[in-house]
């Protein structure tokens, strides 16, 4: 059976679910997928300067009726805490946050490791609903389930992605 190209499957899922906007702060794993989003044109791509700013842009787009996904590195989850609790969660914005999960045992780069170690305890403390992607299963249904969770719970939901999920 032919192996699926997981980043392609991820993007195809977002398009099928009619996501209208992607708000992003890049990471080396995310560089090419953002180029693909921009070139494809089905989703409007907004490149933000900071992840908390990106979160606010995503809230605004959702307020205006666009289903919106964010693409950030896990460093961004660590730096968007106030906006997460005071805006996105407080006003109950359903957002899909797609996170390149750096600094795990699968990505043992010395300067990412501190972020990898802190990410899940911090976002658990923030009350941010999340899951890690399962590399043994297709990524598309996992993204769809996460997007549904965000909508059904009226809250942001983060998917912590591995390299093969997003790096083109």
């Amino acid at each position, binding site marked *: 059976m032919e192996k699926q190209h997981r980043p392609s499957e991820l993007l195809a899922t977002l398009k099928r*679910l*009619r996501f*209208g*906007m992607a*708000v992003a702060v890049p990471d080396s794993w995310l560089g090419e997928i953002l180029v693909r989003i921009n070139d494809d044109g089905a989703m*409007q791509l*907004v*490149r*933000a*300067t*900071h992840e*908390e*700013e*990106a*979160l*606010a*842009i*995503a*809230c*605004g*787009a*959702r*307020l*205006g*009726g*666009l*289903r*919106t996904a964010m693409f950030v590195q896990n460093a961004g989850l660590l730096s968007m805490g*106030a*906006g997460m609790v*005071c*805006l996105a969660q*407080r*006003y*109950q*914005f*359903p957002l899909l946050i797609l996170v390149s999960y750096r600094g795990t045992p699968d990505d043992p780069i010395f300067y990412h490791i501190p972020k990898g170690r802190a990410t899940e305890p911090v976002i658990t403390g923030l009350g941010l609903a999340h899951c890690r992607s399962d590399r043994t299963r297709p990524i598309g249904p996992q993204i769809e389930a996460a997007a*549904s969770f965000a*909508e*059904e719970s009226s809250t942001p939901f983060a998917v912590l992605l591995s390299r093969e999920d997003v790096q083109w």
Partner: protein
Amino acid sequence: MVSPPSPTRQDYYAVLADLLPERALVVTALGNASYLWSVVRDRPENFYFEDAMGLALPLAVGLALAQHSRPVFVVEGDGGLFMHMGALVTLGAAAPRNLTVLLIQNGVHAASGGQPLTNASLDLAQLARAAGIPNTKNVTGLDDFAPALRSALGTNGPRFLVLRTEPDVNVVRPSIAFDPVMTKHRFTTAIGAPVYTPTLFGGGLTHQ
């Protein structure tokens, strides 16, 4: 020679209420920016911040891009702008033509009691121009505001008007309950934003 006092936020809000286009959407930052606007002109198309300092401007960028056929206004303060100055760069790059930023420059953190800003005298219109927003102006007095606003609305945005005001540190009692979820639902209902249908009933976003 003694300079005349700067106008107050209330002075500017009175003009804005008079000139606000019918279909406009208005985002107001935390504190009196929201409390006072609810008193002057409460309407379902207002989105009031209760906290999240510095995030009113980027939220308005996302809203303006999503609702590109409606004029969008955001009232942000100089302290809020300083907390997320990168949002100016994003605004310049994304360049939503329907967005007007009204930047209250009072030189203090008014919502937290009037503590001085790191720098209270920057030329914020010049700062916005440097960030890629050509349509900017430092409004020098109340008499200049209405013409500046009319002129700005006659041109493509984004527009960035800096309103020098006296600090207003006394908390204004808002005219409505500041329930964030109610605020959001009232807003999305007013603009006819699509509503999510639970998966049990088919799923997806549908227009009302």
